[in-house]
């Protein structure tokens, strides 16, 4: 995989003390996005640099606009160029435009690489919130743009940005009766889309490793007759088998240190939870409920607990158990069935799929089962995954029986629901 070449990353400017005024705290459904002015980055008259500057501005604008926390002020009204903003913003004039944050940037050449300088200002306190100089190979300009958007996002929201991230998902095509499933990867905004498997065999339930270098997934193998867990290495582009063991191994997820998987194995009509050491491939059984389906396990953010779905009480419900043993304790008590629990990277919430009254919802609840709320509902929604900062949830989204299977995302507060940019149909994103 391509590596971003950081020749340098320096902090520009002196006024780095961050004022709290511009910080936003999104805890309720009603919330006003921060008006931000992003002056078009400049390339100093060089056509190539000017082109790069324009594209970088576009990506930053898209990132910030798409997350729902910012509203980009119409560039037609801007009263200073990026170059002037980099020198000295005229804060009083920007205030008239009701902009609260201001961004400017310049693109230079540094040998064969690009150097991108940018600054972020708080217009009301008239202070600089961020100033960075980033170096990169010309081909990696998109990542630089995402890094800048991440920096702006973090300075204003207090949360880590997630724009410089990638998403793995199952790309689907063909009719219901002749469906093709391919492993695919793309940037979170849909750019740099790549297929990682041929589609000759059915692949399901991919999960990214904590370092985002490996993908564990279920591959049905030759003629779709030999389902087995595979590990795809994003650095080498190679896929390897995780060993032939009796039973259907499925729903893998990585431990937080990436050293082992937690998974379920369906065998002789019983589906139980196991861990698998990725070095030795040794399995350890975690649950034994006679005749039950214990499936879709996921570790808590700190690795001390496991959440999973089990039908041991009759219908699939969510249970939480200690990693060191003990019985699972049921946490879901609402109407319907509960599937696909995923612990937030922040630890505060568990996302899940709820199946009820002929439809599906994506929802969240606290790890003790309290505070349950639905974020989106429709004909067939399933397979939630968290953004790395625990702020957004992405999922399989088929709103009506006749619509396509798409990917959608929503903020945990329930606003900013949007479709994710994929070339065809898709399911089961992992972020």
């Amino acid at each position: 995989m391509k590596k971003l070449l950081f020749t340098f990353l320096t902090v520009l400017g002196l006024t780095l003390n961050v004022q709290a005024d511009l910080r936003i705290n999104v805890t309720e459904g009603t919330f006003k996005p921060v008006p931000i002015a992003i002056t078009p980055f400049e390339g100093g008259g060089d056509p190539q640099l000017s082109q790069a500057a324009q594209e970088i501005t576009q990506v930053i604008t898209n990132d910030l606009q798409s997350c729902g926390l910012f509203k980009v002020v119409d560039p037609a009204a801007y009263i200073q160029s990026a170059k002037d903003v980099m020198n000295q913003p005229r804060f009083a004039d920007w205030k008239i435009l009701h902009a609260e944050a201001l961004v400017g940037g310049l693109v230079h050449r540094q040998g064969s690489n690009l150097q991108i300088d940018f600054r972020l200002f708080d217009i009301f306190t008239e202070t600089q919130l961020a100033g960075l100089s980033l170096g990169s190979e010309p081909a990696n300009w998109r990542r630089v743009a995402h890094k800048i958007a991440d920096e702006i996002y973090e300075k204003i929201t207090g949360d880590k940005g997630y724009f410089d991230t990638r998403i793995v998902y199952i790309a689907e095509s063909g009719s219901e009766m002749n469906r093709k499933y391919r492993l695919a990867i793309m940037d979170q905004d849909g750019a740099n889309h790549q297929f990682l498997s041929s589609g000759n065999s059915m692949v399901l339930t991919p999960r990214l490793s904590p370092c985002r270098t490996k993908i564990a997934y279920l591959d049905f193998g030759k003629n779709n007759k030999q389902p087995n867990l595979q590990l795809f290495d994003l650095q080498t582009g190679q896929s390897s088998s995780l060993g032939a063991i009796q039973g259907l191994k499925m729903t893998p997820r990585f431990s937080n240190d990436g050293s082992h998987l937690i998974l379920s194995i369906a065998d002789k009509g019983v589906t139980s939870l196991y861990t698998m050491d990725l070095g030795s491939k040794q399995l350890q059984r975690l649950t034994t409920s006679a005749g039950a389906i214990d499936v879709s396990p996921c570790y808590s953010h700190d690795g001390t607990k496991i959440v999973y779905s089990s039908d041991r009480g009759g219908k699939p419900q969510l249970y939480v158990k200690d990693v060191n043993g003990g019985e699972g304790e049921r946490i879901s008590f609402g109407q319907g069935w509960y599937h696909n629990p995923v612990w937030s990277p922040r630890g505060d919430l568990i996302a899940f799929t709820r199946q009820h009254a002929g439809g599906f919802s994506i929802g969240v609840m606290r790890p003790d089962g309290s505070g349950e709320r639905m974020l989106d509902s429709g004909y067939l929604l399933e397979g939630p995954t968290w953004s790395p900062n625990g702020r957004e949830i992405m999922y399989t989204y088929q709103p009506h029986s006749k619509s396509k299977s798409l990917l959608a995302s929503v903020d945990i507060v329930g606003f900013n629901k949007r479709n994710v940019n994929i070339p065809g149909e898709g399911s089961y994103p992992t972020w």
Partner: protein
Amino acid sequence: MRLQITGLLAAASLLSACGPCPEDCVNVSGQGGLPSEIAAVAAESPCVAGSQADFVENVGDRVFFDFDRSTVRPEGIDTLQRQAAWLKTYTNYAVTINGHCDKRGTVEYNLALGERRAQKAKDQLVAAGIDPARIKVVSYGKNRPIVEQNGDEWAYQQNRVAITVLD
């Protein structure tokens, strides 16, 4: 039960002069229904006794399940007993039982449910005297439907199924 099977096999043998069905009839005309339906299909597409097509059309290759259930229903037990009898006659075959679910569920849970359905069918064959080593089980969950599901109950039913495929 045994007599009925013999009768059906005999009927199939009489009509087998035109040779075996094409491979794809396995998927197109698989039946687990009433004997009268099987007989009607058999009359239209004759199959060689002991062939794949014979198994599908005259024995019944599939058993159906209720929504979210993996209990084999009485008519399913009949079908599996016919399958066991047939497999005792034609001992050269191993089989794979494919478990399927309708699309009203999640990918993950349905993989497990499909496995449980296929296993329940296997249990019946084993109880009827078939060596478990001859029977493999694979679950496709909801991801490889048997018929297109456009909302009617019949289509959902066709997909809540364990299908015995001759290897």
